[in-house]
């Protein structure tokens, strides 16, 4: 079956006074129906920008510089604004990083959810209210009638995130983009939120893109993982292969940087810093941090090649090693 979301060759650029910042550099990404895809990378790797691009909500000075985004076969970048608006919130929804600031401080949370039923499903006020309370109950908020009247500042961080999820899932979207949904929540609440996302995703059949820098979360929740570095997609694999045989040097470094309590492995931070994306040179943007760097890495961006089924990597060094020492 055709993937729900097909991102092809997508580039997002920000025009600044100093030059052009290539926040997302020609990435290809598929999200299959019903799967949970982890989108992983350090801060500034272009994960959130990619998500906003799917909504076509990159605001000036940013712009989508090229590529295509197909949602269920429709080219989102070619849709008229009014149709795009009807897709936002109804078919594609977003859960934000900091729920407390993503909820409007001057509106009771219940009204913010009820609004969606009225906007996208044309419900009456009473019907919208009824469904809102039902949805709040579904995401595990006790006393929905009372909480619906509360403002964001009256709720705890975990409660706010539940409200946010209720809002995102209210209209049963087919694609949910969750941008670091557990940042700022303590560990046990974070685990509850992630379970909630997975359960609700399963129940509604929605595909979820989980944007995170926490590989532990990815391991526990996702079906497939895409790794981004400095705006480039370096590796994409099912979760098992990625952790068992990380191929790209960056992915390997990321996996080594996971703190482990169950094994005697030293945790190593990824060396170097995310390079500046301002007028970035051609080639692989990991080159300056990479232990296996080749000359060609700095001049031509490596294409993605399949390593195994459901495992693609964009790296000359890995490719070279694989060719030199074929497996089996």
């Amino acid at each position: 079956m055709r993937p729900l979301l097909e991102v092809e060759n997508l580039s997002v650029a920000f025009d600044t006074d100093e030059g052009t910042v290539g926040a997302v550099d020609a990435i290809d990404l598929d999200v299959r129906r019903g799967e949970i895809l982890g989108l992983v990378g350090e801060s500034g790797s272009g994960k959130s920008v990619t998500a906003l691009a799917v909504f076509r909500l990159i605001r000036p000075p940013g712009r989508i510089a090229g590529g295509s985004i197909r949602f269920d076969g429709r080219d989102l970048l070619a849709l008229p604004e009014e149709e795009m608006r009807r897709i936002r919130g109804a078919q594609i929804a977003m859960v934000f990083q900091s729920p407390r600031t993503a909820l409007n401080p001057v509106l009771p949370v219940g009204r913010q959810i009820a609004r969606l039923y009225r906007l996208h499903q044309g419900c009456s006020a009473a019907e919208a209210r009824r469904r809102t309370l039902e949805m709040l109950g579904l995401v595990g908020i006790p006393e929905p009638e009372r909480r619906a009247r509360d403002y964001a500042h009256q709720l705890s961080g975990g409660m706010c995130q539940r409200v946010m999820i209720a809002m995102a899932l209210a209209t049963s979207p087919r694609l949910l983009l969750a941008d670091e949904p557990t940042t700022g929540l303590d560990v046990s609440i974070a685990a509850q939120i992630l379970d909630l996302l997975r359960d609700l995703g399963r129940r509604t059949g929605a595909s979820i893109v989980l944007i995170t820098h926490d590989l532990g979360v990815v391991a526990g929740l996702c079906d497939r993982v895409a790794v981004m570095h400095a705006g480039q997609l370096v590796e994409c694999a099912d979760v098992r292969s990625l952790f068992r045989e990380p191929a790209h040097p960056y992915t390997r470094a990321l996996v080594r940087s996971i703190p482990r309590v169950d094994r005697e492995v030293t945790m190593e931070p990824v060396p170097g810093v995310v390079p500046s994306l301002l007028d970035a040179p051609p080639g692989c943007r990991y080159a300056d941090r990479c232990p296996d760097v080749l000359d060609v890495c700095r001049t031509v961006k490596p294409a993605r090649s399949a390593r195994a089924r459901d495992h693609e990597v964009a790296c000359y060094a890995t490719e070279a090693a694989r060719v030199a020492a074929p497996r089996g």
Partner: protein
Amino acid sequence: MRRNTLSLLALGAILTIIGLALAAPLVAPYDPDAPQAEETLQAPGWRHWLGTDIYGRDQLSRIVWAARVDLLVALAATAMALTTGCVLGALAGYRGGLVDQVVMRLVDTIMAFPAFILAMGITAAAGNATANVVVAIAITHVPIYTRLIRSEMLRVREMEYAEAARTVGNRQRRIIFFHLLPNCFPPVIVQATLAMGFAILTVAALSFIGLGIQPPQSEWGAMAAEGASYIVSGEWWIFLFPGLAIMVTVLAFNLVGDSLRDLLDPRMRGVA
């Protein structure tokens, strides 16, 4: 604490003045416009607490009735300026680009004139009906709100809840005026309170020079103007009491505005 007492006093003064204005027919001891030939130029005393003017009209009654005019004109002007400023500022701030350029240059043009001169010009050109006074003051106040709302909007439109409002498919108009504008209000409320005082001052000043509210309608500025020529001959009360009314009202609005600002700005709390 002392500051709080002062603000409460100021708030009390405003409420008292509004109360008196509303209850003018009940509290004013005399008809404000009825001349009484045998009572002209009475000094303040038991019959006329604040004295009478050259036509024998009771000053207290006229001041109380005048409060209606002054407050109403100032309020109407503020409301008009606030509404216009909100719409212009919100659009300019949210949309940016050409809309922003056009709106802000328009506002700059208004600001290039000294506010009072501009108000004088407008009333002189349009005729000094009360409605024109309201419009003139409103026009001079629009830039204040437009710039303030625009700067707040620039901040608020980058907030995550603005992004969230966009991702759920709201129309732009709704995002601007329903989701974001209310978040711009706190400093605007402060500004509106301060501007109320300024608007009262402008009404009075326009009337003082004969361009505002016209006699026989009682109005503080016009009354002060009438009284000004009698100071030298010793009839000080005709000028003094309308002048005091203006001063107390404007001062009260400024004090309340100031303390509202301190209240809404945590950095200022406990400093003053």
